[in-house]
């Protein structure tokens, strides 16, 4: 059983820098999350929505990243082939899955929060927050995934090594940021709209 040292070296060289960046960015995201504590006081049900939303978005994007990595290795998707049908199907699926999961999560979060007596937000409010956040973070994460996967392969790096760590670094930061903006907007809108 021969271990291939060139594989080990390539993985170490390509993955390590992004992993260290992930650590730093996540500590930043943690600080950003503390910005949400005010909102938890206004809208306690959000604490049920945020972890699920971040996890679902992460999973959908990681699947997209893995599929693109496989497709690039097989030559089905490539920087030079551009936005072909295979890439389009992948992007559409990822966006659609994000919407469906966000919608279901919003309904679940509403019912659970009503059951355990966390008030503060209507079903419509939950759905609006979840869908808007899913839309914004979906578009951003899909763009990052596609660009990083294609460009890293174009530059001779292995997209399997690069795409997921970059996503992990940026994905959560964007989701928390968007959620903060969306919640602020919905809370503001609820002063004059029946949400």
């Amino acid at each position, binding site marked *: *059983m*021969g*271990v*291939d*040292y060139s*594989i*080990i*070296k390539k*993985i*170490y060289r390509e*993955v*390590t820098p992004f*992993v*260290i960046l*992930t*650590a*730093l960015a*996540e*500590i930043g*995201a*943690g600080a950003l999350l503390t910005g949400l504590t005010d909102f938890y006081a206004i809208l306690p049900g959000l*604490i*049920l929505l945020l*972890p*699920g939303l971040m*996890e*679902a978005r*992460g*999973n*959908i994007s*990681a*699947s997209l*990243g*893995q*599929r693109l*990595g*496989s*497709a690039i*290795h*097989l030559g*089905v998707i490539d920087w030079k082939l551009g936005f072909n*049908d*295979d890439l389009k*199907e*992948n992007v*559409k*699926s990822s966006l*659609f*899955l994000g919407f469906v*999961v966000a919608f*279901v*999560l919003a309904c*679940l*979060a509403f019912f*659970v929060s009503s059951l355990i007596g966390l008030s503060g937000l209507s079903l419509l409010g939950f759905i609006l927050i979840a869908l808007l956040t899913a839309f914004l973070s979906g578009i951003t994460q899909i763009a990052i995934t596609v660009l990083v996967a294609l460009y890293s392969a174009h530059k001779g790096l*292995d997209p*399997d*090594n690069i795409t*997921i760590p970059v996503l*992990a670094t940026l994905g959560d930061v964007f989701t928390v940021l968007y959620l903060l903006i969306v919640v602020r907007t919905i809370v503001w809108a609820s002063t004059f709209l029946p949400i």
Partner: protein
Amino acid sequence: MAQMYKMSRIVRESLPILLSILGFSLFTGHNLETAFGIFVTQFPFLIIMVPAFINMAGGFASVFAARITSRLLLGELDRKYRPYGILFSDLIGLALVALTGFMVLSLITFGINVFFFGIEVSLFALFVIILVSGIFTTILMCGTGLFVAYVVVRKKLDPDNFTPPIITTLGDAVGTLLLVFLIRMILLA
């Protein structure tokens, strides 16, 4: 070249698993986080590294899974992951990255606490807590990824749709529990 990906197939394969995980994370995940939140109030300085810790472990296992599924599709590895030399090269490479990553995370956590918050914490204890729980979680997630891909490929499904949600969900739960256990053992002893 014939089109390889169809939205209907991706959605059909991904949606059931994503929705089941949603239920899981809403109930189990939430309880775990609440319990963990109460627990770490005794050690507020540790909160800053928890999201990074969980994401890093998930990241290592996902890179591993991504590499393995590409190799399976390319035929570089057969369905039983032979030749094992390639499989172990990937595993050793990622284990070294994980070791470096968790050591750096321990150092960052130590640095922030000492220099920003003036909290005295043993660097050695942090190393043990983060490295042991991190490496164990990463290995468990990689093993799960191998198992999931093996089963999924046998059923002629696309492993890229299944490995990320399953390994990260399991990794989050095990990683968090292990962190709590080690903090309890080492810092409360």
